[in-house]
């Protein structure tokens, strides 16, 4: 009930934001922080003693005769994701305060957050799909109206690309729905019914492949991984920084949620061959994105590829976890994958926020134009370095936990293919370090003139996020046990 209340409140806030005119920025800021507080408090309350399954479930019957419900709920996985989304959006709205935006911008931002919340809390397949698709609309308009050069075509590309993926998801959902009817004689869109093992195991081979292909292609486009990623670099690059933060930190949760929140329930549908293909895709995209990132000249674009690269880990964890079927490795690798989704969202938001400040203060975000900014802006550079180290997976920071668990857990399933993964990690580490060296350290680029360091409030906000990353890195067990009990509940 409280969950539905938070969601309704968020929706109301986003609608009101459109009308608040010149107060819209402050209103959106306050609203998103309020949502963050509510979500955090609510999670602390319900996640105590969580041991698998769905909590906080609330169903409002829309039509009793046809078993139609508006139902929401969270589990050990979506709860933390909700929190991550609630952290990312205030952050992106915070940096948007540094530039001039109108009420429409903030309204659309809040609408995007509403859609994202809807995706994460829906326990009804059609509701899930509606929000999944709906999120694209505000983001499309944000890129279209506030983006940089080439925004018209990039916004279109972003939408069409991800829309085609979503369309396939819809077909797969319908197949599940129709097949459920032909087995039990009941129409239902309830996620819990459509993913229950006793039903899933009855689906015949053809429909099995149809459902897996439809859902997986849709989720992989959103994730994204190698052959489906073409929308990502352009969208991240052309979108204004606040929107980039929202897409990279917020919307990237959706792909991961699709895999671990929905596909995990359908894991018995996956033939072994498909899993090996997924492992292959994940390794190719890990290496491909790492190599591509190396050759970027703009740090924003480089980090876009880095973000896509971390998603390779998520897919690897997913495929390897299903191969394990059960046991310690199963829990370890799946929890690692979920941790990676969450850590990536926070780390990549911090990085884009940092790059935004670099762009704001130094006037450029190209590799060639920067250099040695540590001399002028030590705090900014230090936080940036922290983010980069977290992103490359330095022990003690959040990025390490996920990657390490995935490596450790998947070895048994994928064997010596793990060397390719480690190889990609080395490339990733090297271009991160190299980038830090070129931009933050070394001789100062005198063309930049004087750079102001972060102000106190900015320092506080960014520092808080960095501390959060550090805390997650050294003390991951509360979250890890949530993920682990969620994964354990799926078997």
């Amino acid at each position: 009930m409280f969950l539905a209340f938070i969601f309704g409140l968020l929706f109301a806030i986003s609608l009101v934001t459109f009308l608040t005119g010149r107060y819209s920025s402050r209103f959106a800021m306050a609203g998103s922080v309020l949502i963050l507080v509510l979500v955090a408090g609510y999670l602390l309350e319900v996640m105590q003693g969580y041991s698998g399954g769905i909590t906080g479930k609330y169903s409002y019957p829309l039509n009793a005769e046809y078993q139609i419900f508006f139902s929401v709920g969270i589990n050990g996985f979506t709860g933390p994701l909700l929190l991550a989304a609630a952290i990312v959006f205030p952050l992106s709205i915070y940096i948007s305060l540094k530039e001039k935006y109108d009420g429409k911008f903030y309204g659309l931002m809040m609408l995007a957050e509403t859609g994202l919340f809807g995706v994460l809390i829906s326990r009804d397949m059609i509701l899930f799909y509606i929000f999944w698709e709906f999120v694209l609309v505000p983001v499309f308009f944000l890129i279209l109206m506030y983006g940089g050069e080439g925004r018209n075509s990039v916004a279109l590309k972003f939408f069409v690309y991800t829309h085609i993926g979503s369309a396939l998801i819809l077909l797969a959902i319908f197949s599940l729905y129709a097949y459920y009817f032909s087995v039990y004689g009941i129409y239902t869109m309830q996620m819990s019914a459509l993913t229950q093992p006793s039903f899933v195991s009855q689906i015949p081979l053809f429909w099995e492949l149809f459902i897996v292909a439809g859902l997986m292609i849709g989720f992989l486009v959103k994730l994204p991984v190698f052959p489906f990623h073409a929308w990502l670099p352009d969208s991240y690059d052309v979108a204004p920084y606040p929107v980039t933060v929202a897409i990279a930190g917020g919307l990237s949760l959706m792909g991961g949620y699709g895999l671990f929140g929905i596909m995990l329930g359908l894991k018995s549908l996956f033939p072994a061959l498909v899993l090996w293909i997924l492992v292959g895709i994940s390794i190719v995209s890990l290496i491909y994105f790492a190599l591509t990132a190396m050759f970027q000249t703009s740090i924003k674009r480089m980090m876009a590829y880095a973000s896509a690269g971390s998603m390779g880990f998520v897919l690897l964890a997913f495929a390897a976890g299903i191969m394990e079927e059960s046991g310690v490795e199963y829990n370890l690798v799946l929890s690692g994958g979920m941790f990676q989704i969450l850590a990536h969202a926070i780390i990549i938001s911090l990085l884009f926020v940092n790059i935004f400040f670099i762009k704001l203060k130094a006037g450029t975000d190209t590799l060639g134009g920067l250099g040695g900014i540590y001399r002028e802006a030590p705090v900014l550079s230090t936080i940036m370095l922290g983010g980069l180290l977290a992103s490359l997976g330095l022990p003690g920071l959040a990025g390490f936990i996920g990657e390490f668990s995935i490596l450790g857990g998947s070895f048994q399933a994928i064997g010596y293919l793990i060397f390719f993964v480690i190889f990609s990690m080395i490339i990733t580490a090297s271009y991160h370090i190299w980038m830090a060296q070129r931009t933050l350290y070394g001789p100062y680029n005198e063309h930049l003139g004087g750079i102001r360091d972060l102000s106190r409030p900015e320092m506080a906000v960014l520092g808080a996020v960095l501390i959060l990353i550090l805390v997650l890195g050294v003390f991951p067990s509360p979250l890890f046990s949530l993920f682990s009990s969620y994964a354990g509940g799926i078997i």
Partner: protein
Amino acid sequence: MTLIAVPGWLESILPMIFVGFAGFLILAIGMKVDSGKAFSSITFVALALSLVSVVWQSYDPVAGSLVTFNPFNAYFAAILIISSLFVTFPALRNLTERRDIFYSLLLFVTLGMLVASFTMNLVVMFVAFEAVSIGTYVMAGFHKTRRALEASAKYFFTGAVSTGFIVIGLSYYFQATGTFDLTAVTIVSRIPLLTALAFLIIGFGFKLAIFPMHQWAIDTYDGSENSVSALLSTGSKILAFMIMLKLFVVGFPLLGQSVFIFFTILAILTMTYGNISALSETRLKRLLAYSSVAQAGYMILVFSAVAYAQYNGMSAGYIQFIVAAGMLYSLIYIFMKGGAFLALNSIGKENPGLEDISGMGTRSPALALSFTVLLLALAGIPLTGGFTAKAWLFLSLINVKLWWLAVIAILNSAISVFYYFRVISYMYRKEPLSGVIISTEKSVIVPVALAAAIVVALGIYFYVIYFILPFVGFLVGG
């Protein structure tokens, strides 16, 4: 619930009486005065009264073979009245002379639609259909611009040909079944029935503008005045769809497979052709016209699915579900398509291109928002009615295991996103590309905003199909 205490037979024909009487009334008044406001108001009141009496009827079974009053027919009658209601006031904008004739034509066209709705007899249906066609031929050329006259001429010639096809089809149909009453069909001979099928599909297909018979529609929607285009692409089209629904779902019971093959090919060609052609179109009205060809393609998927379910011996529940999806599509379609054509009224230029709506987002935010909602709906984005309509249609395809057809349809729908969003992206460009005036009059914005609001409401109430489902029982027995 009875609205007025009248005898049953009178109550049933009350909707038609309102409309027909108002039509003659306007003609009579028009001899003395020429006041657009009065005519449009009378038309509006008559249509509204007619709508009320359609909706609030008890629908006791009335004996008689020529007319059938039941909720299924009433549903379509209501839709068709709404499509006329929508253009009533917007049409006034560009009317300069003989407004009485235009409005009485609109009323008589609606009368034809009503008669066609409330019958299951093919001859009555045909006559009413022709009444609608003749009225709309005149309306298409009413504004006497060169483009409108050309549009009307093309429409008339193809319309005449299609009438010929329908007449031949009807004759063969009678030879095959020995009756014109769709509810009492017993098949006597197969060969004439197949011939009838081909002729009737072509004949009615012209009006629905499905693929090989669509070209007139592009030119006619393009050339006619906006509100006439709106009526042609909503009312006239849904009328043809309804007649085909009655004809092919009820009237061809044993021809499942042939109907299926015919319609599947037509549907795939129509959707794909409409969408692909719209991709490269830069004139707005032609773009919308191509999009309405594509939409017709989605609609006739209903026939494929029904036929497939029939010849695979699936239970009536499946067929009812498909027909309900088609009915829902018709309802939502008139709002999104009619509204989209009416939105073009705001552009102070004939034959507007994409560049002419640039800057609408800043100059008229309310209109731009409404138009955007309608385009989103046409593209099938969730939380708009377009998604509701498409989702249930595709679901009914999956339901009868036509997964490959659903894949084709949904990929088509994904292609269509591209051109609808191109229009949107022009609308929200920061700098206007041309100096065309974009009107911000209330008379332009209100109908569009109303359509958008209804579309959103239908999108939010996603399970609206369960409200429609009971009506289908009157067409397909369960």
